[in-house]
């Protein structure tokens, strides 16, 4: 599993690693899902369609923050828990109207909240956030407010 839930006095932290930046984004998102629900049903066990989202932000770190914030937003308005996350990141373009913005195309399988026992994660925080390339690949650390 490329993520771990880490101790935090009142909240929950997710530490994730992956060979690619795309993978580490998706792993943090999967960690967010695991922080909400310990026992997510497999695709065959309940109706759970995939949905897509796109995010743009001024930096890679801000992109991760906005991505996780948008997953929490989607959870509340779709009343599904986003799991089995996939993410694809595009670096800033140098020309055109969207120059200087980082882009993310993502998708998730939405498990209906009524089908699971899930705890509410309130928000993503910047506190102690880390997103960096290491010799082994990429690592991220994100604290969520519970």
């Amino acid at each position, binding site marked *: 599993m490329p993520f771990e*839930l*880490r*101790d*935090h*006095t*009142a*909240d*929950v932290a997710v530490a994730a690693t992956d060979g690619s930046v795309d993978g580490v984004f998706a792993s943090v998102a999967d960690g967010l899902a695991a922080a*909400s629900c*310990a026992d997510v049903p497999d695709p065959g066990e309940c109706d759970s369609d995939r949905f897509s989202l796109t995010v743009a932000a*001024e930096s890679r770190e*801000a992109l991760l*923050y*906005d991505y996780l*914030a948008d997953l*929490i*937003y989607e*959870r*509340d*308005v779709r*009343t599904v*828990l986003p799991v089995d996350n996939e993410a694809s990141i595009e670096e800033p373009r140098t020309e055109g109207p969207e120059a200087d913005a980082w882009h993310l195309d993502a998708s998730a399988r939405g498990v*209906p*909240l*009524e089908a699971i*026992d*899930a*705890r*509410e994660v*309130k*928000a*993503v*925080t*910047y*506190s*102690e*956030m880390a997103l960096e390339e290491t010799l082994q690949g990429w690592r991220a650390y994100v*604290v969520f*407010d*519970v």
Partner: protein
Amino acid sequence: MTTYDANGITLQKVREHVWEIPQDEEMGAPARVLASEALLEEIADDRTLQQLKNATRLPGVRKQALCMPDGHQGYGFPVGGVAGIDAESGCISPGAVGFDINCGVRMVRTNLTYEDVQGHERELVEELFDAIPSGLGGGGVLETDVETVEAVLERGVDWAREAGYATEADLAHCEDEGRRKEADAEAVSQKAKDRGKNQLGSLGSGNHFLEVQRVTDVLREEVADAYGLSEDEIVVLIHCGSRGLGHQVCTDYVRRIEEAHPDLLDELPDKDLAAAPAGSRLAEEYYRAMGAAINFAWVNRQLITYRTRKAFEEVFDADWEGLGMELLYDVAHNIAKKETHTVDGEDRELYVHRKGATRAFPAGRPEVPDAYREVGQPVIIPGSMGAGSYVLRGGEDSLSETFGSTAHGAGRTMSRTQAKNDFWGEDVQEELEGQQVYVKAQSGATIAEEAPGVYKDVDEVVRVSEALGIGDTVARTLPVCNIKG
């Protein structure tokens, strides 16, 4: 001089229960921790002290940043943190309020005694659990449209009164009469409104709960009389906040401030301290949006009160007015408000940030409702499911010591992950039932995470508050039944 060292930070003992981190070249002001030695050891066990030091770097912090006796690590600004920041030359920080804007507590009195409730506990806990939406995706008492949400954001509990969910007396016994006048629905994003429209009147999960309690001890008779509390009386305590709407408001403004004020952010040691300079467009807009989210939270707790009254009517076969189910008080513990305080002998308007801290104004302050102005405002300090809770009144020394603030609860000592390793929800539930406390939650994991053993000693928190004169004990309560998400 007595000192205490923790993780490279030295605190000097100023006097009993007051510890100071002296101002160094990085800090904008000194910082103080209000704690006994036992509580200080727990507070110093995580990053609370570093976060408190960081909080002094917010521009315009006056006197000192403070950590209340129940403080613990949060994100950016510590939980239990209080900072009075100059409203002309300082800043306002969404992270120093917290994501759950106006997370708070209210207490509803009844004229029932513990004897009246004994034998009905199981029925009552089931009725309340069915009546009060809780957990993730549990909906709300009201699942409505954006137009109604906007009315709630602008008018607060006054909207609930007009819609038949509240009485005039409910307004009169709520902080600010349940309405922040600066609230502006237009300052709240569509995303926030979308999240809020299906959650109005819901507990959520985590440490939020509704608890039926019995008053076991009256500790200040005259004040208890003014609050309408007597020994053996049944009361209801409701703890929750502004739900997804408030969380989204904070998220939106942290990001907007990050984009608009990068220079200020660069000077701060933690991005979650992101702050808008006082007088800037974003500072004013955030203040109006926060006011709207505060109103939403008050209506949220009011709708839960409405359903609670109905549940009691079912179980006790009497109307709620006959059961004496009047609101004692509703008070926020995640909030920033413009208040006037004396600093260096001068009255200054400050943004008083309280994150996991309760306003505790003493008798005489004009902000205290008429009903309590002669005795001081009620302060409600929830404890754990096993240890009970307290009602305090704002202490005389709170204005000089803490910008009129005290603790907000027992404060966690153990992470949720460790709690789930150390406790098993069903075991905790059975143990509590052995103590005549009936608990029902959406999952056993929630009960384990909120087990009595994961909290500080609420008696000690309250003892320190009393000793410092910032909050005087009025009554103690013990749980009878508890529901949570």
